[in-house]
């Protein structure tokens, strides 16, 4: 019997959703995703969560509340302990099912809170997904098939991101039921740093800029909490590049610049992503998005800032998001950051021209 399974539209939704969704559907369940983040969801989250929690965790509470009146049979709140050997998730992820249970115990019919812990051995995800299936009342053989399928989809999906597509665009393709393999084939030879609007022959056109946007997936992709970053940058004629478009090998390569890995998987990836872009001279600027009340960020920020200090030719800007981040204020900052880079750009071009003609 298929169940209605509710997934909060935040945190790891912005990383694993295609896999979760495929898996659950293959098992014959219906997937209900909470509404996109809104003022109401933020308010609910702030009301329910601990005052000192970081914004993303408060948001998570809000999304769970949103699912409460969607007539859901099971809440999908898996415990992600570790996906990379040697690194864990942020402690708040580890305690997430317990935190939610402490707040909403009686109101939730069924918790899907199997844990995945890859620290010691690689590839135990299958066990994790089997656990989920068990909690939902499916048998192991069904789980095995569904897992294989979901794994395949997820790999295709990630490959698509590595072509430079944003998670949100890829998600749209996925939700529309497009063939991800074909999409990959169509895009695999396009350089994400080439842009149709970018015509070096026509100087009347402003140059398309390329920024790296660094930060946790649930900040950089949540349009409400980042005040529509992607649309804003598009209007400023800037392309954004994110750490999840970088292959894991390329990220691992950056380990040499750190003394040893951080303990949290996503912080690790964010730092390495930043290092990757800082050392790759294709980027015109870096925007680092952090959350108010985020513990790990106190450290990642310092690490990134120290590295950015050594690479001053790539301007760096940090944005701290909280529940009151003003739309207007952020826009002004982004505009002046972009302007600054464009001015520098044209000054450099002039100097170049002078050299060539002079």
């Amino acid at each position, binding site marked *: 019997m298929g169940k209605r399974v509710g997934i909060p539209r935040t945190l790891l939704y912005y990383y694993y959703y295609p896999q979760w969704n495929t898996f659950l559907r293959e098992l014959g369940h219906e997937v209900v995703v909470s509404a996109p983040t809104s003022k109401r969801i933020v308010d609910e989250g702030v009301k329910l*969560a601990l005052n000192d929690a970081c914004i993303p965790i408060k948001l998570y509470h809000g999304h769970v509340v949103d699912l409460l009146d969607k007539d859901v049979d099971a809440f999908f709140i898996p415990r992600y302990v570790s996906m990379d050997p040697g690194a864990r998730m942020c*402690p708040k992820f580890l305690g997430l099912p317990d935190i939610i249970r402490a707040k909403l*115990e009686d109101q939730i019919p069924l918790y899907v809170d199997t*844990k995945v812990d890859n620290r010691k051995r690689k590839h135990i995800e299958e066990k994790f997904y089997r656990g989920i299936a068990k909690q939902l009342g499916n048998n192991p053989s069904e789980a095995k098939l569904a897992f294989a399928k979901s794994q395949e989809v997820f790999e295709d999906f990630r490959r698509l991101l590595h072509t430079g597509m944003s998670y949100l665009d890829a998600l749209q393709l996925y939700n529309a039921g497009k063939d991800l393999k074909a999409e990959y084939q169509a895009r695999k030879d396009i350089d994400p740093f080439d842009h149709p609007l970018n015509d070096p022959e026509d100087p009347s056109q402003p140059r398309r800029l390329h920024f790296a946007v660094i930060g946790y997936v649930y900040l950089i992709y949540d349009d409400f909490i980042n005040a529509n970053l992607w649309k804003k940058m598009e209007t400023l004629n800037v392309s954004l590049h994110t750490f999840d478009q970088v292959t894991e090998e390329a990220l691992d390569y950056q380990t040499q610049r750190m003394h040893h890995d951080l*303990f949290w998987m996503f912080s690790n990836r964010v730092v390495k992503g930043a290092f990757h872009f800082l050392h790759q001279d294709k980027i015109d600027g870096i925007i680092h998005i952090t959350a108010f009340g985020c513990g790990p960020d106190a450290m990642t920020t310092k690490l990134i800032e120290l590295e950015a200090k050594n690479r001053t030719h790539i301007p760096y800007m940090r944005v701290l998001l909280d529940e009151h981040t003003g739309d207007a204020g952020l826009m002004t900052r982004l505009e002046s950051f972009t302007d600054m880079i464009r001015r520098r750009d044209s000054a450099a071009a002039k100097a170049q021209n002078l050299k060539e003609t002079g």
Partner: protein
Amino acid sequence: MTYKIGFPRMGETYIGFAKLVELFGYDLALPDALSKKTIRLGVQHSPEYACWPFKISLGSTIEALEAGAEVIGTLGGSGPCRAGWYGELQRLILVEDLGFDIPHFYPMYHLNDVFKIAELGGTKSRYRALKCVKYAWDTMRTAEYFEKIAIKQRCREVNIGETTKVQNEVMKMLTETYEPAKLKQAKKKGTAMFESIETDKKMKPLKVGTVGEIFVVIDPFANLEIEKKLGNLGIEVDRSLYLTDWIWRELVMDYHPVTGYFAKKYLHDNAHGYLHEPVGGDALEGIAWINLYKEKGYDGVIEIGPFTCIPEIVTKSIIPTMSRDLDMPVQTYNIDEHTGEAGFITRLEAFGDLLSQRRDGVPLPTRDPVTGRFSSADFGAVEGKA
């Protein structure tokens, strides 16, 4: 040549660490006791949202360097919390931001790092090094043993302030002891000194346990002397965390020969129903100990965490439910450089009153938590001021 070594201070544990490096053959460049200056230095040079223990230990390390340390031993971590990166990040800050030249900087991860330090100090033989470790360990445990007595007994003292005086004396005695046989004597003598303090034997004080993040639970400066203040209010205190227990459990082995239990399983079992995963830091311990304090018949629990402490956010999220289920009052604190002493004391007193009301139906006698004196309004005649 003899190197000068320094390390950040944390509560009374510095006595043991100092002993260790002295025995290894170093000269000490001990930073001053933690102070406002430590905080100022730490806050000034730390990332804004770094945790409180990070700021304090950075400040203390700077003070050690100012005292002439050429070698720094510091916190390294067994993750998965920020503490694991303290050493690295502090080194980066000290070297890149502050321009210190520290050729020997050792964050402690493994026993191997201890051997490295021993070797640099001139103790080449591992056997000899281990003997030093053993001695330092015993010193540390003795210091903790004295602390345990002090926080239990302070509430009963008749002459206010005597416990603290004795505590300072015995700690000084430990600092001056260098031989195993003498250490045993010191322990005996110290115990006798505590016993000689005149106490109110009939008193049945309220009992409170403290849980939370290890640094702020252990270090009296970081926790605004919460144990002393509770004692002065007439409340017996027990602390759930001691550094040696932690080191033993996390770095040596899970089985505890003295208490005879498997610590991790024990904690897991006791946190069951509320927290099912060690999320890092001391969250699981905290949740387990709230349960244990309930079982042991304590009147209340105080949870202390640094502001923005990640694992303690998990603890704090769970506490309200747990407190309700167990019918156990739990008060939570967030501490950092902005914590004001006045507000802190008010909350502490209110908690004491609440516990007293629950048990006896009357509030606590009014005492000053800082000095321990009874307020003259109640006991004016006694003080001769009426």
